[in-house]
């Protein structure tokens, strides 16, 4: 018989009694003690010194509160059963997340980013040495992906400079070239405060990488800096919508004519909440946000789950063409992969109509968000390292891979993950949270509460005060430079002269021993 199934021995039972706290008895004693303390301090106040009545008043209020908790309220069982001592549980519980992060969580176990992963970004952002010692702390026993280095690494001098031109396939005059394989992924003014947006935009300009505006409407704050912008158009089309929430061609044309706006992105879905439109609660719609996003004040604005113009593959492809024609810029699409069959139908429709977006961003389900239902974050969509190769091979099979660029996003905050994504088929990567960490994010996980302690995802002027735009923009630029440095070092070690030469051959996935074949 299984030993653990056996009845506990008397010895084990008494041990348990001896080491556990008898909360019931302790609470009864405490509840009686504060009544005693009240009487005692009242007597001392009367006979010895009136100063003791400070204690009398304290115990009077405590007793009143305790009486309410124990006998009058019915919401909190612990308080009803044990009185004020049960408050200790609530107090300690409320500081639990901080204690775990400061003291008890190990360097590799926190999510979404472990302390080691965050520290790596911080070191890059501060421009300090990021070497470590003694060996990796990553979990190597289960499900790991690593890069396969070459027997014959190349020298860094042999590396080709990175260049990726969007819109070259269509021969656009407005084709846009990036010279680093990193883009600041979509973060809107609204999700982020104005200081954070400006620090990001200024840092992106310093580092020479473009910034995706997110669905924040007219990009007022990014336009204050010199960064190249990718204007994102979500399902609610903030900034370019008409009264019914459909695309207003004139507004898009005017925005696309802005010098700094280099590309337009149609967002179909987001990894953290695919199939769901955002909700902007009425309380968050300030006059400024109402103006920038083109929505009325005083009512909740619910983004539709899909673009009203796009009800099937044919209308979706027509819509892409319409945006390309109106904007006159490279136009990309962003989605999180759901069902392969739908994407394949869409790709075939593109061939039928002869219309191709200039790039596709595949967002992994592990991607970040300012606010999303937990069930969506945890339960929907494909992870980036599954969906990038799936989309890449579908594009190749349909023969349209040469027609467009493929970008990847979703937790790609370090060079390792970025190179893995590029080996799986992506031409370049986007990261949002990597840049937030560079701005000083401490992963307090309060992005949806307007209480961000480091002033990034909040509009509270008091909390934004500490976020110095100039100082943080330097860190943003440093982070990009640090990533570039790692990219080059790692490419050289992989024996590749450019990111274009990366292929699944460069990857080793535990459990899949054979080479996956070059593309």
């Amino acid at each position, binding site marked *: 018989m299984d030993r653990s199934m056996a009845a506990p021995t008397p010895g084990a039972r008494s041990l348990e009694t001896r080491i556990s706290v008898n909360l019931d008895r302790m609470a009864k004693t405490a509840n009686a003690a504060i009544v005693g303390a009240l009487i005692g301090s009242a007597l001392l106040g009367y006979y010895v010194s009136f100063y003791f009545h*400070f204690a009398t*008043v304290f115990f009077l*209020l405590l007793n009143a509160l305790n009486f309410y908790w124990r006998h009058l*309220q019915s919401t909190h069982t612990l308080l009803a059963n044990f009185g004020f001592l049960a*408050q200790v549980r*609530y*107090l300690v519980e409320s500081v639990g997340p901080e204690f775990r992060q400061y003291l008890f969580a190990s360097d590799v176990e926190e999510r979404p980013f472990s302390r080691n992963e965050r520290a790596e970004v911080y070191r890059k952002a501060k421009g300090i040495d990021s070497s470590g010692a003694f060996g990796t702390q990553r979990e190597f026993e289960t499900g790991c992906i690593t890069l396969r280095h070459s027997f014959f690494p190349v020298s860094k001098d042999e590396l080709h400079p990175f260049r990726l031109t969007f819109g070259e396939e269509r021969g656009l005059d407005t084709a846009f070239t990036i010279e680093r394989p990193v883009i600041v992924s979509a973060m809107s003014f609204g999700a982020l405060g104005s200081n954070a947006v400006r620090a990001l935009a200024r840092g992106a300009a310093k580092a020479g990488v473009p910034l995706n505006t997110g669905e924040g409407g007219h990009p007022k704050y990014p336009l204050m800096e010199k960064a190249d912008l990718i204007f994102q158009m979500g399902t609610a089309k903030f900034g370019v919508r008409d009264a019914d929430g459909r695309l207003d061609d004139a507004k898009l044309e005017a925005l696309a004519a802005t010098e700094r706006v280099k590309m337009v992105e149609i967002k179909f879905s987001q990894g953290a909440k695919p199939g769901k439109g955002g909700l902007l609660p009425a309380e968050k719609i300030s006059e400024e946000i109402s103006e920038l996003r083109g929505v009325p004040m005083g009512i909740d604005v619910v983004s539709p789950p899909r673009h009203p113009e796009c009800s099937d593959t044919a209308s979706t492809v027509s819509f892409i063409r319409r945006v390309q024609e109106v904007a006159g810029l490279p136009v990309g699409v962003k989605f999180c992969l759901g069902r392969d069959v739908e994407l394949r139908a869409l790709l075939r429709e593109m061939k039928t109509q002869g219309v191709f977006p200039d790039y596709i961003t595949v967002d992994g389900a592990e991607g970040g968000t300012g606010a999303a239902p937990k069930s969506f974050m945890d339960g929907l969509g494909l992870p980036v390292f599954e969906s990038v190769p799936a989309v890449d091979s579908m594009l190749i099979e349909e023969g349209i891979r040469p027609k467009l660029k493929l970008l990847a996003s979703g937790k790609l905050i370090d060079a390792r993950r970025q190179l893995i994504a590029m080996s799986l088929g992506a031409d370049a990567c986007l990261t949002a949270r990597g840049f937030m960490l560079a701005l000083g994010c401490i992963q307090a996980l309060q992005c949806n509460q307007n209480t961000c302690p480091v002033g990034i995802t909040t509009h509270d002027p008091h909390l934004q005060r500490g976020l110095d735009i100039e100082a943080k923009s330097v860190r943003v630029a440093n982070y990009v430079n640090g990533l570039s440095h790692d990219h080059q070092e790692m490419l050289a070690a992989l024996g590749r002269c450019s990111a274009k030469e990366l292929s699944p051959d460069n990857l080793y996935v535990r459990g899949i021993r054979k080479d996956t074949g070059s593309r």
Partner: protein
Amino acid sequence: MKNALLWVPRLAAAAILLTVGYAKLTASPPEVALFLELGMEPQGRIIIGVVEFTAGALLLSPQAATGALLAVAVMCGAIIAHVTVIGIDLRHSWLLLTVLTSALIVMYVRRADLPLVGRTFGRGTRSVP
């Protein structure tokens, strides 16, 4: 509506608290006499004056619940003083009962804002985000 009406008890309690707090801090003769009787002159007078002044100021700020709690505490002390040492007189009783009732109303309406224990009162009107 509720928030606008709440200004009535907030203003009433704050006006009285700021006045009597000011009188205590500037050592007005009647206050000095009271605290001599309690055997707390001058430290007790200054401490109570500061608490009353703080409570009055907080009642006018977004932290009205904390101000109301302080006001209730000071008024409890005042009741003890009048019942056990000084004796009850009409003028003080009126002021005291006005502050106590007003502060209790504010504290009840804003109970969810109370420091530390506020969250155990469930869904009260939270004024501080």
